[in-house]
């Protein structure tokens, strides 16, 4: 990973969501906006999000044992996959 901070990663994910989903605008989307429950992202788009997260992280993400709710919102996504960042 290119020594990104947690805030920079969050920003990138929020921008990605705005680019991919027509169901929310920039002034409505925050890191705690429910993504799946509000159908901002579909399960199909989550696969594409995974590829994006892997690109940001620079390595493959282990998804086999993910807990339900991992993709609930941007905050949870960051805690799950980028917990080591400050």
């Amino acid at each position, binding site marked *: 990973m290119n020594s990104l901070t947690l805030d920079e990663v969050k920003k990138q994910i929020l921008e990605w969501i705005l680019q991919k989903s027509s169901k929310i605008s920039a002034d409505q989307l925050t890191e705690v906006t429910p993504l799946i429950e509000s159908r901002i992202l*579909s399960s199909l788009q989550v*696969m*594409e999000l995974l590829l994006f997260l*892997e690109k940001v992280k620079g390595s493959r993400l282990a998804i086999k044992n993910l807990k339900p709710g991992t*993709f609930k919102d941007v905050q949870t996504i960051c805690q799950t996959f980028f917990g080591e960042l400050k």
Partner: protein
Amino acid sequence: MKKNTSQLATLLSDASVKHFYSPFEAIVFPEKVEMNSWFTSPELLSLYGQPEWEQLTEEQRRKLSFLEAVNFYSLNIHGEKALIEGLAQRLYDEKSAEHSRYIHHFLDEENKHMIFFGTFCMKYAGKVYPDRKLAFERTYEDGEKDFLFFLKVFLFEEIVDYHNLTMGKDERLEPLARKINQYHHFDEARHLTYGRAVLVELFQQHVETWGPEKMEEIRQYIGSYIQTTFREYYNPDVYQDLGLENPYDLADRVFHSEISRQHRKTVLKNVFKFLLQNQILLEEPAV
């Protein structure tokens, strides 16, 4: 007279019995395969026609054909695992006994395919590429879950079958790779016939009650599902294993290129024809 799905299931069960085979005898897996062979038809490779293709050596192109064969077999394994799960849930439900009889064959044949794919991947590549698809629970309208299940089966298998049919006939391919594609196509022809009939039956049963808003949602879903299914054919793990730089950017760029879009349209020609004819789609979605 057009057969109903129960009658069709009976005919297909009889055909499955007639063509029954043991997966352990049908295909012999040698200790080694000649790595400098084609394992995927070059024209079906994700980089074919792209600027990157021109930069690959002949040896790299053939290695890509091996890695993309492993990727193709891997995504088949993941797709068939989900298919088997869904089919098993539908055994002995409210449909006729003829359906359950055929589902037993369907399950058996899908299991055999996974044996072929899994044996190849583990024996010659030492791995199956992991799956990136995730499914979230949600609520469905009456009949919607069944319809979406058979819709996904139809789309996934039609796309796979285009590849099987092309590669099963391709004499440039390493004989084992060719044979795996031939066997898969042979069984899939029956599965596709069944899946198409059930899909249309479910659509006709429920379309009136779903209404235009739900149908619009389903039609959007079809476009998304096709895109996601094809996205797996452009796997950054493959590019990484081939030693290419920036595999994620490469996968992204190649997937969105016009050459790839045209390729997808060719693969999907009959899929769209069928969905339009049955009014499941009203226009072709962007691919």
